[in-house]
């Protein structure tokens, strides 16, 4: 029997290694898998390359991961926000590398990785400094820039409900990057609000089929399993 549901966020991220490329879902805090990120901080993986739309808000979630000095490089579209002080200070101190990508190209590059596309011509960014040094081509009278896929070792995403085969549905605009990141990583780890029995998700409405998901973990863990979660958290490298 295939059961992709793992017992804790610590177990879910236990093999994320130093130097890994990690996609992290979310647009701001909507869809950000905060519990998985906290577990990753506990685990203490270093020198990560992180792919996210932003670069952290406040002092929690992705911002906390940056603050813990786990991230060598970030690939994102919009790092500067009113509450991105953690990234801002690391960036100004030269302690983090930034690859800035227009948001639609970021999404399409992630989608291309999942779809096995070698490269694609996009009109976005043509003639701007973000296309500097990139191959361009005129196609049917319009100018395009060649962009390549972004693959990842791991994707950490947040969904609403999931089953033991890894099928996922999301909630409102928390969907954002989740489905495409799930397709672009070797190992996709989804935290879900609720796990359901097989057949509990409408096959017409499943957004991410289980083929794209390797691990599902309920988070935050409910009252019953909370003590265990806390226990596990105290042994970060297990």
């Amino acid at each position, binding site marked *: 029997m295939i059961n992709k549901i793992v017992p804790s966020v610590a177990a879910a991220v236990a093999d994320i290694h130093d130097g890994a490329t990690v996609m992290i879902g979310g*647009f701001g*805090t909507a869809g950000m898998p905060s519990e998985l990120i906290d577990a990753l901080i506990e685990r203490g993986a270093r020198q990560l390359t992180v792919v996210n739309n932003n670069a952290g808000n406040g002092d929690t979630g992705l911002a906390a991961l940056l603050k813990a000095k786990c991230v060598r490089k970030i690939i994102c579209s919009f790092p500067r926000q009113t509450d991105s002080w953690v990234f801002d200070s690391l960036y*100004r101190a030269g302690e983090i590398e930034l690859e800035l990508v227009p948001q*639609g190209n970021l999404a399409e590059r992630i989608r291309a990785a999942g779809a096995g596309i070698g490269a694609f011509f996009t009109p976005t960014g043509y003639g*701007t*400094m973000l296309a500097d040094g990139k191959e361009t081509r005129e196609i049917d009278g319009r100018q395009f820039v060649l962009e390549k896929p972004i693959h990842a070792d791991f994707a950490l995403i947040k969904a609403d409900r999931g089953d033991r085969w890894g099928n996922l549905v999301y909630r409102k*605009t928390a969907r954002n990057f989740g489905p495409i990141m799930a397709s672009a990583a070797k190992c996709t780890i989804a935290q879900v609000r609720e796990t359901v029995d097989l057949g509990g998700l409408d096959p017409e409405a499943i957004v991410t089929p289980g083929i794209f998901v390797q691990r599902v973990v309920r988070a935050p863990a409910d009252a019953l399993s909370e003590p265990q979660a806390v226990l596990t958290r105290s042994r970060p490298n297990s």
Partner: protein
Amino acid sequence: MQRFTRDEMASRVARDIPEGAYVNLGIGLPTMVANHLPKDREIFLHSENGLLAMGPAPAPGSEDADLINAGKQPVTLLPGGAYFHHADSFAMMRGGHLDFCVLGAFQVSKTGDLANWHTGAKDAIPAVGGAMDLAIGAKKVYVMMEHTTKQGQSKIVDACTYPLTGIRCVNRIFTDLAVIDVTPRGLEVVEIVDGLAFDELQRLTGAPLAAGPALKESQ
């Protein structure tokens, strides 16, 4: 000097958006346009983070952290709206499915080049978000901005000095002084704020202007 207020500018932009249009309103000033869309027109607001038929802000206390707009403010969804993922959302832009987008700007050139994401300052942290996708991502791109900077410099220029967002992408400029079309013949003035002469507008503008057909008729 008389100037359009921000509400008047937003109202003026709204007037140019017909029923049935699919529209993306950029972060900042353009967001105000939503408040001025006529209630009797069905207009579909798209938000880059994956929703179509975005509704107004929720009542206080009804905010949902999972239902936000591109500016990360709480919003609502109208009946008949839909959610989708980021690749599909930007496919709607890049694929030319939006009828209009309304963007703020630092500068617009006489050929419709847009600069609105980066001042180019050495110490600035660059952040582009969806700006470059929006610049090429609608059948008509409207810019909504003050006509001049606080220092009095024209934001309409011969050639942008700030880093570009997109090339030859702007169709119409709405400022606090005028409405101006970018045409193959150059910049054509559609409307001027009451009491401002064409010559005076030209003096405040960093690129050559011509009177458009509508303006000629009204004069």
